[in-house]
């Protein structure tokens, strides 16, 4: 499932850290500087990419690093999004500093409950259980009209208040908020995946029985990883709800879970930037296709996906990773 990355920088000489940081710096600078040059349409697309990037990274944390295939990850996006939406629409809680943490917390609680049940089984059963829970929550959203608006969705989710005097939301300012969230999430996930805990997740993915014999409580690790993934998905969920202004039951269900899984796989599981690329690829490709043959988008997506699974183990991310490593060696030699 994607090339394994070595934890820590023991591989490269210590001086090389600047080089390994370089691409990140470049990307950050570019993304910071872009908004004035983009139309509202493109800016909105970029915002959407970043939101899905957070969502995809969170899924990659359990799929690529821990080796647990989940088809119910949208449940956490949806729970957070609905929680945020309900707070804003039904309870008039408009402070961002309340809405965001509560949304994330809701996702975390959902992950704690679902994870506890789902992790009683493994492999394909785990996949099925997560799928079932996603659908269960989606059905609950349909049923609970009073709160969620049922199939019509929860509408009128306005951008919450940042508490800054004289501040109003624009497409640009929301983009910067999302971008900030993305950078923070990326940084945190980067630290966690490179940490001891992250390495043990990789060990569990590679050989769980041996990890148990080496003294690890593998269930606890998987559970914690699952909850963490849920929390990060929650971040994406709140941002998602605010971005679109509406939450529908489908956001909790299989279609959304499958889409984010596709992003992870196409971009490359087991790397952090892979899912980011995957998110970008799919969002951009979808906009492109919908200009020409919008009804055939699922067909095209399915084909791309199958090609990636069959021939590009590790998705685009691996090629990028190898390309960059090759570049770095050449640059270092200069």
């Amino acid at each position, binding site marked *: 499932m994607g090339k394994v990355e070595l934890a820590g920088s023991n591989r490269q000489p210590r001086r090389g850290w600047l080089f390994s940081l370089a691409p990140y710096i470049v990307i950050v600078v570019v993304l910071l500087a872009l908004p004035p040059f983009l139309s509202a349409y493109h800016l909105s697309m970029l915002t959407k990419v970043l939101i899905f990037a957070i969502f995809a990274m969170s899924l990659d944390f359990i799929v690529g690093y821990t080796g647990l295939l989940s088809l119910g990850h949208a449940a956490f996006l949806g729970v957070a999004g609905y929680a945020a939406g309900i707070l804003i629409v039904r309870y008039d809680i408009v402070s961002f500093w309340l809405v965001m943490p509560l949304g994330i917390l809701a996702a975390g609680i959902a992950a704690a409950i679902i994870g506890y049940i789902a992790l009683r089984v493994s492999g394909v*059963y785990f996949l099925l259980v997560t799928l079932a829970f996603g659908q269960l929550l989606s*059905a609950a959203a349909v049923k609970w009209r009073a709160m969620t608006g049922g199939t019509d969705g929860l509408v009128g989710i306005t951008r919450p208040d940042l508490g800054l005097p004289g501040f109003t939301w624009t497409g640009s300012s929301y983009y910067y908020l999302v971008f900030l969230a993305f950078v923070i999430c990326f940084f945190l996930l980067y630290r966690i995946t490179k940490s001891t805990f992250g390495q043990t997740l990789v060990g569990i993915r590679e050989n769980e029985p041996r990890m148990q014999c080496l003294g690890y409580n593998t269930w606890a690790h998987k559970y914690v990883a699952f909850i963490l993934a849920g929390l990060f998905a929650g971040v994406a969920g709140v941002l998602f709800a605010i971005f679109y202004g509406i939450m529908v039951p489908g956001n909790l269900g299989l279609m959304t879970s499958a889409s984010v899984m596709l992003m992870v796989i196409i971009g490359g599981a087991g790397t952090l930037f892979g899912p980011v690329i995957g998110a970008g690829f799919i969002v951009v490709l979808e906009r492109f296709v919908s200009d020409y043959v919008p009804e055939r988008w*699922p067909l095209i997506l399915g084909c791309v996906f199958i090609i990636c699974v069959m021939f590009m183990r590790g998705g685009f991310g691996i090629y990028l990773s190898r390309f960059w490593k090759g570049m770095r060696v050449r640059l270092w030699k200069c």
Partner: protein
Amino acid sequence: MDVILLHFLIGISFGCILFLLGTGLSLTMGLMRIVNLSHGALYMVGGYTGLAVAKLTENLVGRNLCFVLGILAGGICAGLLGLILETGFLRRLYKRELDQVLLTIGFVYILTNLVQWVWGPVPQSGVVPSILSGSIPLGGVTFPVFRLAIIAFGLVAAAGLWLFQERTRIGAIVRAGMDNKEMAMALGINLKMVFTGVFALGAFIAGFCGLIGAPLLGINLGIGWDALLLAMIVVIVGGTGSVQGALVGGLVIGLIDAYGKAFFPELAYFTMYIVLIIILLFRPSGLMGRKI
């Protein structure tokens, strides 16, 4: 009493459809250790194709025979698709089981979109052969004949599949493959062909019941995922790898769903999931399953 009986029959008839849906998935999971997530999509393709064939031939051979032709066409179409999927794609990822599962997700997208391309997004309604239309009085309730026929067919199919599993050589080979692949191969069994055969059979059954299940489940673009979900719940509750598991799972879910809708209408849709969660908490390998 009448109400109990009515819902009992409703539950059993729904359960038989669930059994048929679940069998293919269960066998594939038990033998190949992968979840064929396109199982529901194959059911859908079978339903659409079968309906199209039935409508086409209705004037030629009459209301009853066209139905039979329809279900056969649905089954064969789905079976062929299953064959292509397995030999062309899944087989090439031998031993990459999680990748195989991912592949089947891709198939769902493709199949659903192809169906939409051909038949459009409007839901269709199923047909019932005239010989099986209408209702008959039964122990104080009137009950649709078609549903009775489903029960009869389901039980006959269950018996047939069980005999196939337990009493035929091929069935023994399949069970051997489920227990111990290496051993089966060492005994000279061509496991690849067994895999393909089981997969295609599962697809055939799914497609076959596409038209049969239409009056109960409908024929629309969403049924791909819906049917998969139902099949999955049946498989988890009943246990994988055996016909009896799928039957038990199907009947249990069917009955619980029927009584749930009757007595707890607010919870109706969730009764299935509640059963699923209970089973997972206390008996993850399913009611009749081997230990995972």
